[in-house]
């Protein structure tokens, strides 16, 4: 017989029978009628705004028809709908010009996350037990309304607390109305990687409480004091575009980039010259450079204007900061300081920036003033190739931090009755020493608007989950990243998958139900009405040349992802003006006796998890960390010589203990870290944050000492000292440079 026929028969004979399931509609889910008119296989691109970090990049979302399992009116079925398939940068957007960092791209997984909360929940078990039951939106809004109505009736001071991420645009306006309506509310904008030190310094030095817009693309010499500017600092995508230009975008011209820090950061890895500096000595170093420039008459002291006058001794040429006098303290050689200063002065435009750990020491504010003065001396403030300030409105500061909130509640000075929680996880991103968990336990009613259960939202009594960012309206005024004025706006890129509601809409609904003055203060029925109203005002102010009326202006803005000025129009910088009280350098303070705790502890922002808020995304857990290639875990970095001295091998489980706590993580040998420092990425160590992040790694924030940056009321998270001991064998998952096992002698892997 023919071989083929034989095989067919024998194969069929040996098989087991199976249910004839395919091709029969009776065995499938019902299909809902599509709400959108889409052609399958053809993509449309919709603008949106990325909200995963403060940069505010503009997105283009690739939307294609797909079939999603959804619940409608209690029935489970399939719905053909427009689904976001990929996030890319919006080429027209002035901040990111078509580019997008890895985190922004992973934002897609927020919408489709399997552990996303699908509808409102009310607590049933004891707080923190994780027991919730589903409730309807009507019930949830009724409950929140009644809590706020009671609070309003009681007229109690400090009864309302709000903890949100730093917000902008009409969303912030709506939260602010709530905060202002109740007497002496505690409105906290919480962010571990906040930029309040830099904004305070810029306000003092240059009259703008904004992060700087750094024109790297036209710079010739960049001095970065610890700022991870192509990774996580300020506006990383805009700065990366500028970095590329600075390197190879101008034929015949290539800038020099010098990075000063204690550990080679992701950005420091690309430096032309990487110079280690003692922790907390960044400001001193900046003034040392300034001293050389002034003493050698490369630039006059007066060139630094108001920013220079803020530093004690500036007009005398900073005699206390001669290289020989500061060499030991900063850890640099005097000749190095002098050489770099001369190079910077000789290659204008030269710019100096500061960030990350340098502004997280107790003297971080002074360091920022010092670096500002150096930039001003180099003559690049307000000029191409230097620091500019956008015309965006300065962020309003509530003045209340998580630390202050927790201490006031714990001490009894404040008695908050209701807490509104939005897009913040302070139980995770605050050190245990602040007692945030204990403070939250004292608040009788906690409502969370988050999309996920995490360490903080798990304590809520009522959860009213927001839409994911791709399902939401956006409006935003990015504070830095472009010299043009930018007002982003975007409608939702896709219909909601689950029974969620836009938080601003929920707040407006609640306000109207509470009624009275609160209802009157928020006249809009929906968030997009508020945005449209703000755009009508913007049209009158700036848009009359680009559209014939406010409606056309509004339509055009939504189509392109926002409105921006055609030309750069940075805010003018005042370098003149009367000198205010001069600041004096202070030595950095560290917590922990140097003998008992011999190491400086350096938490650093993770390129993948940022401040931990993105650890729940599988793409971020599996992407190898750029410098260490670690996946699905956390680690402690230790210098090779130190490791040999302490008999620590790569992969050993080490215990890192501060005066305020301890944690365990595997050790990673890193040649790029000072011998007296240990570093750890921020972002892992979630106890409760979806299936992907829970139980993964350890959280360095938990053991930090509660020190403050003087003069800026900000958390000094680089000021903790720790000790180290080996407690066993850990698990380090490296992607490495090859798929073969690394040999044990290869310490650098």
């Amino acid at each position, binding site marked *: 017989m023919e071989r083929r026929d034989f095989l067919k028969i024998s194969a069929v004979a040996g098989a087991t029978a199976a249910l004839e399931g395919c091709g029969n509609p009776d065995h499938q889910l019902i299909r809902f009628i599509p709400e959108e008119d889409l052609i399958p296989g053809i993509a449309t691109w919709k603008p949106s705004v990325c909200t995963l970090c403060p940069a505010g990049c503009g997105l283009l979302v690739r939307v294609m028809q*797909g079939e999603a*399992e959804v619940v409608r009116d209690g029935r489970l079925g399939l719905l053909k709908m427009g*689904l976001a*398939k*990929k996030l*890319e940068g919006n080429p027209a957007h002035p901040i990111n010009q*078509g*580019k*997008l*960092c*890895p985190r922004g*791209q992973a934002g897609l997984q927020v919408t*489709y996350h*399997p552990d996303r909360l699908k509808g409102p929940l009310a607590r049933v078990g004891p707080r923190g037990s994780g027991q919730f039951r589903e409730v309807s939106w009507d019930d949830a809004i009724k409950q929140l309304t009644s809590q706020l109505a009671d609070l309003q009736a009681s007229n109690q001071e400090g009864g309302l607390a709000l903890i949100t991420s730093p917000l902008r645009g009409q969303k912030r306006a709506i939260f602010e109305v709530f905060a202002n309506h109740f007497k002496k509310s505690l409105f906290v904008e919480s962010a571990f990687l906040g930029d309040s030190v830099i904004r305070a310094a810029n306000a003092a030095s240059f009259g703008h409480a904004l992060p700087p817009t750094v024109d790297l693309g036209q710079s010739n010499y960049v001095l970065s004091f610890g700022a991870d500017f*192509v*990774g996580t600092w300020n506006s*990383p995508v805009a700065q*990366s*575009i500028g*970095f*590329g230009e600075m*390197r*190879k975008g101008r*034929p*015949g*011209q*290539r*800038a020099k980039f010098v990075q000063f820090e204690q550990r*080679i950061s*992701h950005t*420091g*890895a*690309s430096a*032309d*010259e*990487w*110079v*280690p500096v003692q922790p907390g000595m960044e400001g001193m170093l900046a003034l040392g450079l300034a001293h050389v420039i002034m003493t050698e008459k490369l630039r006059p002291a007066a060139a630094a204007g108001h920013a220079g006058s803020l530093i004690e001794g500036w007009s005398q040429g900073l005699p206390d900061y001669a290289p020989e006098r500061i060499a030991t303290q900063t850890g640099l050689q005097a000749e190095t300081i002098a050489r770099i200063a001369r190079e910077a002065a000789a290659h204008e435009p030269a710019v100096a920036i500061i960030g990350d750990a340098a502004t997280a020491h107790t003297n971080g504010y002074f360091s920022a003033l010092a670096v500002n003065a150096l930039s001003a001396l180099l003559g690049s403030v307000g000029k191409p190739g230097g620091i500019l300030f956008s015309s965006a409105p300065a962020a309003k500061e509530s003045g209340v931090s998580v630390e202050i909130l927790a201490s006031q509640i714990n001490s009894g000075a404040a008695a908050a009755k209701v807490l509104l929680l939005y897009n913040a996880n302070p139980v995770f991103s605050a050190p245990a020493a602040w007692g945030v968990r204990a403070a939250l336990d004292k608040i009788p009613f906690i409502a969370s608007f988050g999309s996920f259960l995490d360490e903080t939202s798990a304590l809520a009594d009522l959860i009213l989950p927001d839409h994911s960012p791709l399902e939401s309206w956006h409006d935003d005024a990015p504070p830095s990243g472009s010299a043009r004025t930018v007002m982003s706006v975007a409608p939702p890129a896709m219909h909601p*998958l689950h029974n969620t509601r836009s938080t601003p809409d929920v707040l407006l609904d609640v306000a109207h139900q509470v009624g009275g003055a609160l209802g009157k203060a928020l006249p809009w029925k929906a968030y997009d009405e508020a945005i449209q109203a703000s755009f009508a005002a913007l049209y009158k102010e700036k848009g009359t040349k680009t559209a014939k009326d406010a409606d056309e202006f509004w339509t055009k803005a939504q189509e392109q992802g926002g409105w921006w000025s055609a030309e750069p129009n940075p805010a003018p910088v005042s370098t003149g003006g009367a000198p205010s009280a001069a600041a004096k350098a202070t030595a950095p303070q560290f917590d922990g006796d140097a003998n008992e705790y011999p190491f400086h502890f350096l938490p650093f922002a993770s390129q993948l998890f940022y401040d931990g808020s993105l650890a729940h995304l*599988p*793409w971020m*857990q*599996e*992407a*190898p960390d*750029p*410098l260490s*290639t670690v*996946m699905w*875990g956390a680690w402690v970095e230790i210098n*090779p*010589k130190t490791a040999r001295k302490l008999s620590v091998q790569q992969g050993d489980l080490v215990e890192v203990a501060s005066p305020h706590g301890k944690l365990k993580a595997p050790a990673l040998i890193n*040649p*790029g870290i*000072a*011998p007296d420092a240990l570093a750890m990425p921020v972002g892992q160590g979630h106890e409760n944050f979806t299936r992907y992040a829970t139980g993964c790694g350890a959280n360095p924030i938990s053991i930090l000492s509660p020190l403050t940056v003087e003069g800026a009321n900000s958390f000094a998270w680089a000021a903790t000292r720790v000790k180290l001991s080996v407690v066993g064998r850990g698990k380090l*998952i490296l*992607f490495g*440079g090859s798929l*073969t096992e690394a040999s044990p002698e290869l310490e650098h892997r």
Partner: protein
Amino acid sequence: MAHNWGMVIDLDRCTGCEACVVACHAENNISTVGQEQAARSRAKHWIRVERYYEGEFPDVKVKFQPVLCQQCDAAPCEPVCPTFASYHTSEGLNGQIYNRCIGTRYCANACPYNVRFFNFYNPVWDKPLNLQLNPDVSVRSVGVMEKCTFCVQRIKAGEIQAAAEKRELKDGEIKPACVQSCPTNAMVWGDLNDPESEASRLANSSRATKLLAEVGTRPKVTYLPRDSWHGTENA
């Protein structure tokens, strides 16, 4: 003349940010393998950023190098495949035909760049993460090798579009996902058979080098190593 697709990566611009790594995962339906399988070196990063530390503290230098399938013109993975699943296409790509692949993994064995990845298990997406899948790209099943394709789906789409508009392809019109996402514009992709294309121009740069060129694979990815600061003169 037929296209011969190639890529140039300027390591003086590359900051190792890994935007390319995530863009590739998003575009090409690469599944996450999870912690246990990642520990067994089975994570499938079609493009990865290699980083090398040199020196001892404080004189330490770090270098980044994105590594992806080099689409070698003398690819060692092609002659060893028993089913011709790995073959050279008419436009210079090393094609990976999933339905021909029977999973001998000999191609990965032969590849000196370690850019080929095997699906040891059926890929899993915890619902509704499956909704993120790109309909333009196959979802590979268990037992199949996969690797960077230079985003062949984008190449096809671009060629079909140009044909529909009855015109030639423009240089820079097609960008693989990694090239498009790179914030520093370190990556350039184009037709090496077109002397006017930016990829050709940069591939002829005096800084041009290739990875493991001495092995004889004739890779089509050209690297421009990191430059150094030369004071006032230079480019």
